[in-house]
């Protein structure tokens, strides 16, 4: 093994666009300029109207946890070293269903969360869900702290 192990860095061209769109304290997702659909995962065209006119924009970061899981075995070595790893699915108020890293306090279904897009230690964008019991600005700070601590505090 050479070099430091990082979270998975592989992305498609559209995944790299998500990384390029990362901006402080926000959730940046792909938006359709023709019909205003917000979509995730990123696509080449709009899932609703098939327009190719798509822009990454800051969207409303509020959502609700649908289900969570503690991954005890992961094929990726970075996660395997940190198992069990908490992740889950979040239904965003602005439409899409996203898979995200979950802070430990929001594993229950129905938990209201803020979701942010941030760069992890691989340099690529990931989504992180933080409890809405924190005010938005506090949640932004917590999300940044988690990323800087290599997400170690999440599990």
């Amino acid at each position, binding site marked *: 093994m050479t070099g430091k192990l990082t979270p998975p860095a*592989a992305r498609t061209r*559209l995944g790299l666009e998500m990384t390029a769109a990362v901006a402080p304290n926000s959730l940046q997702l792909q938006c359709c300029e023709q019909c205003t659909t917000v979509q995730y995962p990123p696509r080449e065209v709009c899932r609703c109207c098939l327009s190719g006119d798509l822009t990454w924009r800051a969207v409303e970061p509020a959502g609700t946890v*649908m289900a969570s899981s503690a991954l*005890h075995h992961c094929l990726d070595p970075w996660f395997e070293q940190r198992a069990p790893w908490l*992740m889950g*699915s979040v239904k965003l108020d602005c439409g899409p269903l996203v898979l995200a890293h979950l802070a430990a306090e929001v594993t229950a*279904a129905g938990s209201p969360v803020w979701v942010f897009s941030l760069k992890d230690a691989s340099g690529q964008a990931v*989504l992180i869900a933080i409890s809405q019991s924190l005010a938005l600005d506090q949640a932004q700070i917590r999300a940044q702290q988690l990323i800087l601590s290599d997400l170690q505090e999440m599990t």
Partner: protein
Amino acid sequence: MSRKPKPYQGVALIAPYTVPYERVSERGAAWFIGRTLAGMLQQCGLEKSAVDGLAVSSFTLPPDSVITLTEHFGLQPRWLEQIPLGGASGVVAMQRAARAVQAGDVEVVACIGGDTASVGGFTDLVSNFSNFTVDAAYPYGAAGPNAAFSLITRYYMDNYGATREDFGRIALSQRYNANHYPDALFYKKKLDMPSYLEAPPIAGDVHLFDCVMPCAGADGFIVTTVERARQLQVPWVEILSCAEQHNAFPEDPVQYRGGWNYFREDLYAAAGLGPDDMQFLQTYDDYPVICMLQMEGLGFCDQGEAPAFVRETPLTFDGEGLPHNTSGGQLSVGQAGSAGGYLGLVDGLRQLTGRADQHQVAGAEVGLVSGYGMVNYDRGLCTSAAILQRGVL
């Protein structure tokens, strides 16, 4: 659906065949597919030259494909199909081949799902399964289907009160069936409820015996005319109805139903039968919660009632309830890649042609085979189902 599909009159399904599964193999996918073709032909007495159509499903075949296989196998077909629909592939291949035979485009179509399994091959497959996987699942540790299905399992448990023991009933009955099917990887291994419940957790509520064992192998069958089956003097199976539906209910935040709910009524109406008439049910069983979605979606019980249904209904091949995944399913036979989308159909054909030996459902004349597959992000996208009946001489 405004248009009504024509019946599948005159079409015969023959020669169900399975190449015994292996945990890992250095052989290529073409070995498993080719040996299945050989076994199918030998079983029904057809020459290789009679094969004028070939449908293949395989994850590990690339860079080869169904066309390169024609040269590999020395075939001269005039109809080819490659179906990348995972666990829905078997029924879909059957349906498309049946229409081609019925229209007179071809007379003998070999349909085969098969894969090899190299050491490390599974990791390579799942880490680059699709663009959505790469961008939106793998970065969260969700490589492979375990994570997605653990979320579906959790949601189902929260909403319908299913317990791990309910899922265990499915796993245990399938293991019992596999203990009567010598080609199953777990033929000689028994499973009881304490062992099921105490098995190590893999992802959330998904534990070891909820997961299939990736392996190498292949399953196949031949689609031809009833006339040809009669000439060959082999038992055959007829299609009473079948359907496929993909990307159903895209707005459901978590998958708790599937394409079966779209086509169920038409499927039974075309067959002139209902769920109570089915003498077995083969579901795609990667993972037990998905079996429950199929039991509900195909009308064996109401939405959310599958936990109660499996508590009340014996699911073994000889339990006189609803024989379910009669060879043991992927959970106990193994998941040989794309063969997993054929396994239930091929065992259904064995049941309906009286060739299931130790795990034969007594007097099986009609049964239902369901398919499900392809997790691109957070749910399986493909569904299919067929009602099949023993052919009458």
